[in-house]
């Protein structure tokens, strides 16, 4: 059992989510003889290069054949194995969409999908390797749970939770190596329950994946302008934590932040729920604006999509100005009970 400590958090951050996941896969294999890791030629990229040697009976590599990956994983799950299937997020979700729909959604076979390089992190390999529609695709299929952990520690938490979860799920991994750390100590994680990372009263920042760390930085920046931000880590995008959203009805502005196309992602999920309410804040959707970005390194890509901390801060400030939400004084933006 992996523990969340400062030291571990540092190690997981260094490895990045996709290599951290390998540690968990090996641990699960050791603990559970019925555990199987299936991949389509991507074991090496998931910190699992030695998995096949250590657990040959619990390893399946179907080669570069993602449709077959889903079928094989579902067939094994059906026969009583506990299958986690992983490869690049975009190939996993896009190439095998119908297979996921039929075997996981419709037949409810509890395979857990792990998509590496969610969002922009492997954008230097061109848009083919960016997963920017995956949340929309997976969220549209009934019975699938969709999770995007904030950092390595939360990935660990999510993996344990998914192991115990009977239904099918999609786990989206974001960021590269040296991911920012959000959690350095134990905390309560439950599928479908958002985590409040910071209390505030004016603006609610709602983020998933590595965007959660960025949201904390944005909140700190906005604090300098006297804006008090609540930061919500919406690690589970489906089912959405509606109670957490009920709690921000009175806010002036809600900001959703994600490395995903604007259509169909976290922002869309929040909008769907909030739109039916009598009282709700204005929403600002920070996302990729419905174009395939030019291939570039991760940091540059974030910038070209307007998703760096300073850009997002600016955009939120501008919106606050439009809405008349800027406070008179910059003092007193912190409120009681917040955590840093």
């Amino acid at each position, binding site marked *: 059992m992996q523990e969340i400590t400062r030291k571990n958090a540092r190690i997981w951050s260094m490895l990045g989510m996709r290599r951290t996941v390998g540690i968990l896969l090996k641990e699960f294999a050791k603990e559970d003889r019925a555990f199987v890791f299936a991949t389509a030629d991507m074991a090496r990229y998931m910190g699992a290069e030695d998995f096949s040697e250590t657990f040959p009976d619990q390893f399946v590599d179907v080669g570069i054949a993602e449709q077959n990956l889903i079928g094989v994983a579902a067939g094994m799950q059906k026969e009583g194995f506990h299958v986690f299937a992983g490869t690049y997020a975009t190939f996993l979700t896009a190439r095998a969409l119908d297979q996921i729909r039929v075997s996981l959604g419709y037949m409810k076979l509890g395979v857990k999908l792990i998509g590496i390089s969610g969002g922009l992190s492997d954008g230097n390999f061109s848009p083919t390797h960016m997963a920017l529609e995956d949340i929309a695709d997976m969220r*549209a299929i009934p019975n699938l749970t969709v999770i995007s952990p904030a950092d390595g520690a939360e990935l660990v938490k999510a993996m344990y939770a998914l192991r115990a979860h009977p239904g099918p799920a999609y786990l989206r991994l974001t960021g590269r190596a040296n991911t920012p750390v959000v959690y350095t100590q134990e905390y309560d994680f439950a599928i479908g329950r958002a985590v409040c990372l910071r209390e505030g009263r004016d603006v609610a920042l709602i983020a998933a994946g590595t965007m959660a760390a960025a949201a904390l930085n944005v909140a700190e920046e906005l604090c300098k302008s006297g804006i008090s931000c609540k930061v919500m880590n919406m690690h589970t995008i489906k089912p959405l934590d509606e109670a957490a959203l009920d709690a921000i009805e009175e806010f002036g502005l809600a900001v959703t932040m994600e490395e995903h196309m604007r259509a169909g992602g976290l922002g869309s999920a929040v909008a769907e729920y909030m739109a039916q309410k009598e009282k709700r804040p204005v929403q600002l959707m920070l996302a990729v604006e419905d174009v*395939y970005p030019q291939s570039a390194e991760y940091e540059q890509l974030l910038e070209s999509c307007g998703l760096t901390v300073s850009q997002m801060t600016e955009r939120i400030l501008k919106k606050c100005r439009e809405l008349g939400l800027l406070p008179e004084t910059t003092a007193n933006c912190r409120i009681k009970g917040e955590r840093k």
Partner: protein
Amino acid sequence: MQTLSRKTARMWSRLGQRGTICGVALPEMLEERSDCYILTADLGTTSGLSRVMQQQPERFVNVGIAEQNLIGVAAGLAFEGNVVFATTFATFLTMRGYEQIRHNLGYQKANVKLIGSAAGFAMGMFGNSHYSYEDIAIMRSIPNMMVISPADAGEAYLAAYMALEHDGPVYIRLSGGLNAPVVYTEPYAFAPGRAVWLREGKDVALIATGGMTADALEAAKRLEADGIQAAVLHMHTIKPLDTDALYACSGYGLVVTIEEHSVIGGLGSAAAEYFMEQERKPRQIRIGIQDTFVRPGGHAYVRQENGLDAAGISQRVKAAVSEGV
């Protein structure tokens, strides 16, 4: 190209949306334009393409039951300067070849027009594997893709011609089967991205797409009997969204989006994404399939069971209006 009239409307309604595009519009287009192709994955005759197959065998291609290849071959032909229509059942078209669509049509903008037939529950007893209610969500998330869902066969005809002229990928989502209700009986201006007001009313705005528009009109009539004045906006283009028309809805206390599609990711979500960013906005209710696989049956039965007919819509709207005031 023919013009819409009472007579053509009646004739095409009998053929349904698919029959009108595949049996009327496409044969004309292939006749008129030598750079136009039609491809299918084993659904030539079923789709009503017999005329094309006989008259233009050189520009008809059946790739067999192989949807990924369908998209690839279509893109290859398009890259060579052709306008290519590709058709099969909506769910297999959009899901089986999804990454090919993303890569060739979205990313490389191949000039391919996807005609997804029998979307929603129109496959009736064929069951959930053949139902398509995620297609708007997944097509809408792909950049450069235009998404259209015509109200009736006449509009499907116009949409097909628009797609022919439009330079870029288009997904046309076809609803219903044969003998579909008629919404338009006379010529009107059809332009992509421009919604059509079909009925005025001050109390609530019904925003519908595809085959549901006819039901929304019928529901509005029923609501009138209960003293509720419902406007009907037909949103045939889901992407790009007509935000001017939505802006015009912001004065209403309540808008209701209606679609034969999941409440996740479709028209309802597109509208919610728009409204939520505005300061002044109505309360929105999304009528659609409640994120579940359903109990199969005939098309009318499944729609009824899921509240997707005039009765279901009017009930839901009535309840929402009374609780909202």
